[in-house]
């Protein structure tokens, strides 16, 4: 069972979100290739203890909201010669997401 999160979740399926473009040191769950990119929330996955803190022996609480976000491949890679309809889905914790700016991508 998922532990309770401290705050209500901010996003719903279909929301357009942008992954923070930051480079904090340490164990982070955001692959470099997806930082700063925008996609659509595919589903809400639940709240989980923050793995970025679990990695250092903390309890990771309060739990963080986790979302699956669907990105278009063409939005991710600087050089992309595949079809526009191909996607990449990955999980992003809420504290790494913000509502997408309309002009972001």
């Amino acid at each position: 069972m998922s532990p309770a999160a401290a705050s209500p979740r901010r996003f719903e399926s279909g929301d357009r979100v942008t992954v923070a473009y930051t480079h904090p040191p340490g164990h982070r769950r955001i692959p470099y290739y997806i930082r700063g990119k925008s996609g659509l929330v595919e589903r809400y996955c639940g709240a989980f203890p923050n793995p970025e803190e679990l990695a250092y022996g903390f309890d990771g609480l309060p739990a963080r909201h986790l979302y699956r976000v669907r990105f278009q491949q063409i939005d991710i890679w600087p050089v992309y010669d595949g079809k526009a309809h191909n996607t990449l889905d990955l999980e992003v914790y809420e504290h790494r997401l913000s509502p997408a700016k309309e002009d972001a991508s």
Partner: protein
Amino acid sequence: MNDKAAHQHAESHTHALLRWSDDSAHDIDETARYPLMTEAIRQILVEKGIISAEAVRRLLEQMDARSDVTGGTIVARAWVDPAFKERLLANAKEAIAELGIPEVDATQVIVVENTETVHNVVVCTLCSCYPRMVLGMPPEWYKSKAYRSRVVRAPRAVLKEFGTELADTVTVRVHDSNADMRYLVLPMRPPGTEGWSEDALAHLVTRDCMVGVTVPRVPAQAPAVE
């Protein structure tokens, strides 16, 4: 089992333990700092009687006993039972529990369905997250830097190297298993399997089909309809 074989057997289990406790699992050096530390801690815990060598052995045996037959069983049921398939896609964890498959850990599972227009493939770019509870231990290539770095940006090229060629019209959906979800691909049931038993279907669905680097194929010498 003779003494030598018994020793080798025990040793291979120890190595399996070291792999999973060490984040550098993709580049194994058994004399590196973390593997040595893990082994030292294991020995101390056993010496102090906190855990038993038998308990460690049993756990490793259970971990090694998991295999893609479990995943194949789930897929075969979804192929023959549309209502189960719906439940599986909506909430895989609950649907899998229906089949009496024991929950080995608290990990969440998401099942993604291949269709005529969508092909799914799974990777973990950050490490080597893998649905071990339904597929067993991951293959070496799944953990390799080459697969992890290439399949996210050139999935078609990587699939082609696995002998899987997809039409341009098919959407390739890469799932980077980078946090708390684990992914199982539900392949399409291949033509020519009409009337097959659920068990025969389950054995057609191999590990690689459920990671998404290939698709189930009916062998040239198809088994007789049971």
